[in-house]
């Protein structure tokens, strides 16, 4: 591996100062499950690696019944799914953090790293989108907040500007009678990259017969994870029958812009979007009814 220097700042301002000093030559390290492999394989390089795991804000995982969840960018997957208070409220996110890699990867991999790595197939991003997460970003000019669906702009590309750090995600308290689900297709049972993925979230009316809110998001079928607002909209306030579900799935299929590659053809991916959105909707509805 090419040589680099290492720093583990204990405060956000120290980290920002290091990034400001070193510009493009510095890279942020969270769990390292993408970065260390990429540095080793020469797919990216750095003169300075800034380990952000000792910064309190980036390690915070706190649920507040009024404000919702604050998920620090460097919190590893296992801390999220082992927290019962969070697991019950954010089921779509839990689906994703419990399927990333294997146990070894989940000990280290963070949601912030998954987001900043900006893979089109990143598993946490569609559920974050349907849970309406907002990115909290700190930089030389202060803090800003950006909805998660606007964070990725292309494969490996995000809206982060030079010197900026993702501090964490704010995820609102889900509405009553809420359910969400994330599903992906991989050729194995575990340890693989999504050929396609779909997240669906629903909020039901008081007698649990109609959707008052619905959101659909996709992964691995476009240059970035995709929010398909129109697909959620077709479910709202209408009867939840087969016809509505088909319409939702078809709308999602139309929004997908898949490519052919070694994992699957565009045609297969489009087919998967139909299957996965329908199944994720069924799961989400079942969870909403139970909630």
């Amino acid at each position: 591996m090419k040589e680099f220097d290492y720093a583990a700042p204990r405060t956000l301002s120290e980290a920002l100062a290091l990034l400001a000093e070193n510009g493009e030559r510095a890279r942020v390290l969270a769990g390292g499950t993408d970065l260390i492999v990429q540095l080793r394989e020469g797919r990216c390089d750095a003169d300075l690696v800034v380990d952000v795991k000792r910064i309190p804000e980036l390690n915070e995982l706190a649920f507040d019944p009024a404000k919702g969840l604050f998920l620090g960018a460097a919190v590893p997957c296992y801390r999220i799914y082992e927290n019962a208070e969070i697991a019950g409220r954010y089921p779509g996110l839990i689906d994703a953090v419990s399927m990333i890699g294997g146990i070894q990867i989940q000990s280290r991999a963070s949601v912030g790293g998954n987001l900043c790595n900006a893979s089109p197939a990143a598993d946490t991003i569609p559920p974050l989108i349907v849970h309406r997460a907002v990115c909290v970003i700190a930089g030389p000019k202060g803090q800003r907040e950006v909805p998660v669906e606007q964070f990725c702009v292309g494969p490996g590309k995000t809206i982060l500007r030079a010197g900026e750090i993702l501090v964490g995600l704010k995820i609102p308290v889900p509405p009553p009678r809420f359910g969400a689900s994330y599903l992906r297709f991989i050729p194995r049972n575990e340890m693989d990259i999504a050929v396609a993925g779909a997240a669906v979230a629903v909020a039901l009316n008081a007698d649990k017969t109609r959707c008052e809110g619905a959101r659909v998001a996709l992964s691995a079928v476009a240059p970035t994870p995709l929010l398909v607002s129109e697909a959620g909209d077709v479910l709202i306030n209408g009867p939840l029958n087969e016809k509505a579900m088909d319409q939702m799935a078809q709308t999602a299929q139309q929004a997908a812009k898949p490519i052919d590659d070694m994992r699957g053809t565009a045609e297969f991916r489009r087919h998967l979007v139909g299957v996965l959105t329908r199944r994720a909707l069924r799961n989400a509805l079942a969870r909403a009814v139970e909630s």
Partner: protein
Amino acid sequence: MRKIHVHAQINGLPTDFLCEPRQSLLEVLRDELRLTGAKEGCNNGNCGACNVLLDGRLVNACCVLAVEIEGRTVETVEGMATPQGLHPLQRCFMQDAALQCGICTPGFLVAAKALLDRFPHPSEQQVRHYLAGNLCRCTGYDKIVRAVMDAAESSS
């Protein structure tokens, strides 16, 4: 490149070493500390041959920088047996012939230990799920799964 001094607890012993920031925990364990139990299979997080426990959590040592372990606790396969004898998992791996070439074995042992520390009586499905990040090219996994189940039973 500047070498960094790191202090950590490794298999229960306070340990100091110097390393370059680019060196992985796996490289330091094997090349500097001569703890060659953890193996390099893929060097990219996919095979689990390098598994160790970091503060009790199962990690791939090839995906951790050695400088990151400052002040922390590492357990490797070398720490599993005691002067009194082998760990039940090690005994069951031998009894059940859960290894052939043995390259994957230290990783499986450490991963299985992490599993049993957390869930002393796992179902077969739990065992298979927990060990999904460990690859074996020889055994076909069945004997490994059986050895882990037997070890769980023998320590009950």
